[in-house]
């Protein structure tokens, strides 16, 4: 038996004996995609967050790659940090993190980008008031650990992009 999963638009065929392999190890060892980071390895810090969309689900969800076996991702569409920029064009949140000097060492940044991407894709169609943004942002990235920045500039950058998104809605 085999199964497939799609990473950054490319579909890969996997054998069943890979079912117990953690997604992070697969990304690193097999695909040489090392943008998704290992920090704690037990799902606490969320540096390894990727975006996963399963089956008919309308929205992607953030998934902790260090602790997720491939068996739970059969047929899933996975986006890693390497798949966010399209043809060299950064996403809005990547640009905002850069412009706002949101990160320092940057090791936690891919996880923040992916969680923010998932949040923003939901926000694009959600009925949300601007006053609720702070709480929603805390819900989206509040469990991510950053050791360098104190979170202020990450929060500011995401708030700016989210607010612009809300204001652009008809």
């Amino acid at each position: 038996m085999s199964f497939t999963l799609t990473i950054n638009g490319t579909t890969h065929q996997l054998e069943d004996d890979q079912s117990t392999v953690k997604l992070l190890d697969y990304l690193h060892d097999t695909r040489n995609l090392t943008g998704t980071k290992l920090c704690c390895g037990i799902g606490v810090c969320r540096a390894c967050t990727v975006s996963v969309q399963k089956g008919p689900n309308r929205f992607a969800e953030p998934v902790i790659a260090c602790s997720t076996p491939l068996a739970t991702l059969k047929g899933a569409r996975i986006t890693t940090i390497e798949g966010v920029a399209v043809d060299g064009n950064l996403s809005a949140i990547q640009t905002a993190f850069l412009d706002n000097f949101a990160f320092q060492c940057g090791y936690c940044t891919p996880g923040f980008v992916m969680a923010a991407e998932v949040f923003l894709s939901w926000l694009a169609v959600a009925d949300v008031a601007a006053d609720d943004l702070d709480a929603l942002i805390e819900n989206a990235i509040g469990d991510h650990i950053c050791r360098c920045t104190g979170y202020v500039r990450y929060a500011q950058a995401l708030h700016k992009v989210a607010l612009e998104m809300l204001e652009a809605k008809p």
Partner: protein
Amino acid sequence: MTPDFGGQRAEISRRTLLKTGAGSLLLTVLAIPDIAIPATHELQELAGQAKRRIDGLAKVTGQKVYARDFNARDMAGWPSQQKFAMFMRATTTEHAFRELDLSDLRKDELPERIVYGDQMHKTQRAPLIMGRRDLLLDSRDDFDQPKGMLYDLVVKRGHAPDFLGQAVALLIFASKPAYDSARKKMQFRDSDFQVYDSAPAPQPDAVTYSPTTRFVRYDADGQAFSYAQNPDDYDELEPVFADAIDLYLDENPQLIRHDYTSDMRTMDPMFMEPESGIAWYERDNRNLHLVLGTQSPDGDVLGISQMYGSTDSPLPLSNITLTPCYPGGGFGGRDSSPFSLMLALAAAYGDGAPVRLSYDRFEQFRVGLKRHACALSGMLAVDADQKIRVNKMQLEFDGGGRKNLSPYVAQLAALCSSGAYDVPMADVAAKAVHSINIPGGSQRGFGGPQAYFAIETALDDIAAQMGWDPIALRLNNIVDQGDRTVSGGAINQSLRLKEMLQHAQTNPVWADRAAIKADYAARGLTYGTGLAMSMQAYGTSGDGVVAAVSMDRDGVIRVASDAVDMGNGSATTLSVVVGPYLGRNADSIEMGGYTLFTQTGLSDEKGGSWSDPGWTAKGVGSSSACLTALHQVHVVQQAARALFLLAILPQAAEIWGLDSLEEDQTKWVDGQLTYLPGGKPPLPQADLAEANFTRGGTSSVLAHGFYQGSWTSADFPINGTLTRLELDGLAVTSALGFGPTPVRRRNTVAPAGNPRDGRYVWAPAVNLIGLTVDKTSGRVQIENAVTVLNAGKVHVPELVSGQAQGGLAMAIGYTLSEDLPPGMDGPASGNWNLNRYHVPHFADVPLNQSYSAGRRSQQLVLLPADGETTGRGIAESVMVSVAPAISNALRDALGVRFQSLPITPAKIKAEINP
């Protein structure tokens, strides 16, 4: 017609020779492969200003920039097959280690090789480490000479480990599946795989790491005695003046005396990227290739050269090729880390294949350098006029199992013991002792967090006891320019502490604290306000810095520096500070340029003299984030200025048809050089660069500076005239590629500082904390934080505020939640991770940047530079006074002094609900 001398790029060599016991070896430093750093002119709107981090694009798109990202397959010219190293770690120091028992592993899980300490060459097991730290005792203790490591990297069979987590064996696995499977099976089951003698092993005598520190300062009754002021008779008179202080106390019973004690647990830097690296010993040409993310490439390479540089080396070395990567955080935890030695050790057993050593978080907690646990006690005596008279303090740091930098951390703690105050009589002793615990390192603050906690909480207790205003008490004692530190070192720098305290005093978080407290109380919440201040030193007692600035034919500017960017933004800062000199920010920057110094033509051999134009007091030291703003920026700017004088100015004069042209007659405007007297067309920077190459001008300047209270300065012949530069070394490379050729300095003026002063430059900070405490759970929440910071000239405001915000967050964790027990109850057991070591999350830190009542906020008040032209190292200064400010706020909230860090909910509950 002027001949075209050709050439396109200004190259700076990445190679240098290192001396070893067996002769010399060639060190080559390579850039990170395929890093996508964008052209800076796309990022920087104006020369001298940063729009984004220069390393930002690579990091935000997930490119390979960290050592952990690389495997052998990513390295050009390496074999693609790599092996995997694992060190087994000691679980006891009470029994002799006998051997491993791997019988529980399947055949396909077995390592291809097991190496014990007694099977290693002595230089592998215990390499001599060069003590290149320049610290206070430089002038009386010759610790720059090689010192033997006190304890082996790997335990010999039949010997009891010296400390928990010491390696007992090296395992080499031939494949990733074997490594992964064995690791999974062995993790958390050390006792099933390690065999120790059942009989107890003899225990060693207690060891105190050398040097220990004692500062006795006596400045009263017309007598002035101190370490710095009495270089000739200090040791002889130290006990005499210590007795004089005791006699003064006996004769003045009216003094208000406050005894204090404090203790702090070990703290893990918890940088996000666990240490990792790959190494390949290429036997044919005796080349050791290393991919490392390190804070101290100079020390790492020297250590490795000691490991393999002897005449009977088991791994004969002719070359080391180092690829330094961006570290995924550092905070001092990667400074002089033994990781690089462990990786180099493993490389010897790869049998020609690259070897990867990668710690996971459990192992990083288990062996990574820590901030020291500390126990201290003392007595502060103040007179009725609110003047501090005497401070006596004793500090003992738990150095853990290896010496590392522990005695020097204790030394700086002693220097910080008087806080930001003028203390006329002080008797301070600090030492670091060996223990079975994980070794301590140079983590952020370097002794400051412990010492400032002591003095700032003691002052607050006296203020509370006497009913004095805590700010007034501090204002009455602040140290200022012209005063002296506890070492007797002169303070020749403006501190502006009074102005900073006044900022805090008028901030609503302090001014309205009673009303805020009442407001919270009305909502059933317990609120308190606390304040503390510090003046953290940056730099050491003598700092050597080297940098190169070059300009290509098309005007592209490149900077190379010996600094390492741990995330603090050094690379970005150094790339923009050349802009005002060269009309354009740097397009690329190479950090960790360890090969630069040897190309300057300078020597830093001991015993040299400033009268020798080829000598400097110090080449380079370990990289510290706090060295960027003043030290690194200065040398980069001096190099940029020299390049302007050599490469730009002559071309402009030629094009403009001027017989003479002075630099102050020109100004860069929008990337074009303009002639201020007028009448000449502006010259685009790229055209000047083209002209420079066409005429075979200077393409690159390599500069070295030495700071010790002031910069060494000298005259250098430039364009036929002597030009004064605050440098001690200059070398130039021509567009033809010749060089770097040293430019002989003249009329050298030595730096003004007395090495015994210890430190010369300071970054003062005042922290103000408002917090609530839940009396039921003991949980504390930071509601308001105000930091008043004297950062001097700010080069990149976003980087400074980011550093301050990060420092605050880390300090909140240190104070309230980051709790590492010693011994096998702590991370030495190998089963600690972020599920039980609680670093601050988003919700633990106030995120709003302006204060409004009832809303959590974090304010950063930067003093205007007011003419100060240089930046101050602020990486550590913000965080060192946060812990006492929190403790002081808790005292205000609960009426209880918490003196033991971290102040966990359990400790709070135990105090208020005994």
